């Protein structure tokens, strides 16, 4: 449980960080809160030659509203996400999900950027971001671009981020007031990654579902945006029949692997249970 040797860098600006990333290629690795990277280094599953610490970059911290959008700096901690009154008011699913990540100690160090950039299917925020249709702001030597969360994840630990790019912020459209939301996570204990989890945002209008967005955590190589499952709810009263169809659609895309949390069959089954519970809770919260 001892990491290999590495060079430590602490850039003072985003440009400097990007320059270091470009210089060191696949030998370079940024470290944010370190709560995913350090465990992997201790197991020597990751052996970066150059560690580029982002803790000095204050410009990457903070939560701002810009019109109908919220921008959250990559270095904002999970604790800050959970504590933000602004987020609790305009996008409360973020608090609900953040409080289901690990434990307070981890959340005080772990960052939102690290959680979404990491690419581990067990991370909770990626599915939430897909559910909210957020985009990730990436900056590299060639400039800045935005990649939708729904297109960002390619395989476990593989994302659309290029090696020399830094994730600087997460940008998300504020869901309409009165939307219903829920993040349901089944886990074995505090600090555990999900056996299965589902993020749901529902917009109801006159008792009918106007839009529904569902995404799943830890039941595939990547977070899964369950587009079809959401679609089955649109135009319905979100009644039992519609929910059952959404559950089946979500289970249909789940491809969990068997692990100590349970065999595939169980994890697929509880994916359905989490979707059902999240939809039911979101519906109860939505203003018709």
């Amino acid at each position, binding site marked *: *449980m*001892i990491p*290999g*040797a590495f060079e430590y860098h602490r850039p003072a600006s985003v440009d400097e960080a990007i320059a270091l990333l470009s210089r060191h290629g696949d030998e370079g690795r940024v470290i944010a809160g370190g709560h995913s990277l350090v465990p992997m280094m201790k197991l*020597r599953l990751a052996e970066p030659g150059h560690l580029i610490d982002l803790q000095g970059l204050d410009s990457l911290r903070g939560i701002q509203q810009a019109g109908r959008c919220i921008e959250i700096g990559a270095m904002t901690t999970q604790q800050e996400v959970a504590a933000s009154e602004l987020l609790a008011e305009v996008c409360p699913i973020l608090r609900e999900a953040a409080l289901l990540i690990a*434990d307070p100690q981890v959340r005080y160090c772990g960052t939102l950027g690290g959680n979404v950039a990491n690419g581990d299917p067990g991370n909770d925020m990626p599915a939430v971001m897909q559910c909210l249709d957020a985009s990730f702001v990436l900056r590299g030597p060639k400039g800045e671009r935005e990649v939708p969360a729904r297109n960002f994840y390619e395989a476990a630990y593989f994302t659309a981020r290029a090696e020399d790019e830094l994730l600087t912020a997460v940008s998300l459209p504020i869901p309409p007031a009165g939307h219903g939301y829920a993040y349901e996570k*089944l886990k*074995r*204990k*505090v*600090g555990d*990654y999900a*056996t299965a989890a589902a993020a749901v945002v529902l917009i109801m209008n006159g008792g009918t579902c106007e839009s529904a967005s569902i995404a799943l955590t830890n039941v595939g190589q990547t977070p899964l945006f369950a587009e079809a499952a959401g679609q089955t709810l649109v135009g319905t009263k979100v009644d039992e029949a519609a929910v059952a169809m959404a559950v089946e659609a979500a289970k249909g895309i789940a491809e969990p692997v068997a*692990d*100590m*949390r*349970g*065999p595939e069959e*169980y*994890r697929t*089954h*509880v994916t359905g*249970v989490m979707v059902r519970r999240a939809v039911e809770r979101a519906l109860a919260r939505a203003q018709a």
Partner: protein
Amino acid sequence: MTDATEMTLEEREATLGGIGCARKRKEDIRFIQGKGNYVDDIELPGQVFGDFVRSPYAHARVKSIDTAAAKAVPGVLAVLTAEDLKPLNLHWMPTLAGDTQAVLADQKVHFQNQEVAFVIGEDRYAVSDGIQAVEVDYEDLPVLVDPKQALAEDAPVLREDVEDKDNVGQGVRKHPNHIFAWEAGDRDETDKAFAGAAVTVKEEIFYQRVHPCPLEPCGCVASMDPVRGELTLYGTFQAPHVVRTVVSLIAGLPEHKIRVIAPDIGGGFGNKVGAYPGYVCATVGTIVLGRPVKWVEGRIDNLSTTAFARDYHMTGELAADSNGRIAAIRVHVLADHGAFNAHAQPSKWPAGLFSIVTGSYDIPSAHIAVDGVYTNKAPGGVAYRCSFRVTEASYLIERMIDVLAQKVGLDKAEVRLRNFVTPEQFPYTSCLDWEYDSGDYHTALNKVLEAVDYQGLLAEQAEKRKRGELMGIGLATFTEIVGAGPSRNCDILGIGMFDSCEIRIHPTGSAIARLGTKSQGQGHETTYAQILATELGIPSDDITVEEGDTDTAPYGLGTYGSRSTPVAGAAAAQAARKIKAKAQKIAAHMLEVGEKDLEWEVDRFKVKGLPEKTATMKEIAFAAYQNLPEGLEPGLEAVNYYDPPNFTYPFGAYLCVVDVDRLTGEVKVRRFYALDDCGTRINPMVIEGQVHGGLTEAFAIAMGQELTFDETGNIQGASFMDYFLPTAVETPVWETDFTVTPSPHHPIGAKGVGESPNVGGVSAFSNAVVDAFAHLGVSHMPMPHTPWRVWKQCQALGIGE
């Protein structure tokens, strides 16, 4: 002499902080300030570090080991392999069970993560780099992870080194992968009882492989003084004196040149009883390099290589009449001991005290048979917070009695009440020959049933069942057997399992006591001081209790199996009584009366009929160093080696209520009521702490802990990502209660308690979970009751969707 203080009798008693008071723990002053001193806190001048190259394979031939690149890593000082240890004859070591275990893999590896080479370097970083640079060439071999398959006729032979031996220390072998067969009871009589029984039940009950998982893993610092030829070995040892003797025997060093020191220990639970390759390699390392060598294992090392617990494949059977009165019990166990037979039991007991399997019940006949088997898994088989194999035995009988209740259609409390040994039967000799010292099982269970409104719970359950909801009520009415033990039937390496206490009273009336046991968090510094306070009339605050240094403490067999209070606690009382006898002589001299004219009162001797003529223990202490009667030697010291006449038999009645979510399989413990009877209660707060801890570990075992293996022998779940250590969030709320039935043979009537809650707790949880499904015809469900397993049961019953 006149009384200097004006204190009342009650005030004087309270000042002592003796037996029965819930005083705060003396050791916590340093622990809560972070001032404990654990093995990894030890830093000796010139100290270096060592760690292992471990095998990725569970079964493979080691074709070659190339250490050249590792030796070239900056900071690496030495790399040891079996070849290097061979000239010292230390490449294998004897186990406590009469087998041998490879210190470093000799030609073959037998389990994943087995120790293959030991790299020593200036610091942990150099050592880690060195470990990565060692090149080992393996040829993989067929792997056996199932003990049943290990006994198949054409199974590959695991232990080629003992292939030709018909005995590896614990009895006759019937197969190259078989370790021992052990039997107890009367087979014919038992068969007869079964043949004539109105009702019989049978169940396959597997108690999964778990790990004690102390928060602090195992480790040591070995330091050889080449000038004096003295070895000091600091380590996480539950039994420091045994370690000294073992080191002397295997390293060939004279025992007086070895000093073993167990500093503060962060939990043991049986994991720190045995000897591990790390201790041997660090010792060889310091002898070779002349510098202190530290080895401290990591979490994954701890969970995957140092001693596991349980792994018992049991088949239980009960025969009874139609009223649920049990006539006989029959048990067969296939015991998976892993690659080396290194379990820690008294030498004569290859299945520990498993024959306590008749539990709290008056069962006329029994037959049990245990077969030990080698597999490609880590060695061990220690008692994880229970006396030797007692939790397995207790789990079996507590599960089976529920199975019987279900079969005869009786309530599970009723069937227990009908079968309990009755208070008049004590001392009670079980059909498997254990003499239970004292007990009152009916009172204990009835008290619990009343406290929780058992009838109300049953009514609620019946209502819930009508609505399709799953609610379970679990009972466990266990008897433990602790305090190993009488030397006529207990020894380790031929040394009787006595324990010891040495007391010195200082002239000003304070004292130091040293004992042969070793606290790992149980609070010995407090509870032993309380026993001595009451016995000697000296405040417990004025008594230092010391353990763990073999140069100063009297020889003892250490702490495990809840033996500290039953054995060393008794030694403490007996040593104190020797001191008191001498004190009486001095007091008589001081007060110018005959010894017989004196009587004891709390903290002093009084002259009968002249209450103002007294000598306090404090005054006597001073006199012991200057004012002695003719012919009496100065000083006030005593030592006692206590060989207990019998074990003690603590017991309890636990009740657990659970609700099951049939869609996710999650089990929620709604209520847990634990009544313990450990005889005389020394410190109620410490007892409550022990019960809370034991119940929490029982909860962990029943609900989540398991070490499993895939078919190629890869260990699964051996890190905190998976291995279930409940936090305060998952842990249920515990309600505790007690009755007091003193042990008649223990000097202060005390029994052990640290392990009772684990023994009884596991059964109570498991019985509650199964009970949630009992009305659907389910009689047993495999542990641990993780959500997915429970859901599988729901699914099988068609209620999981």
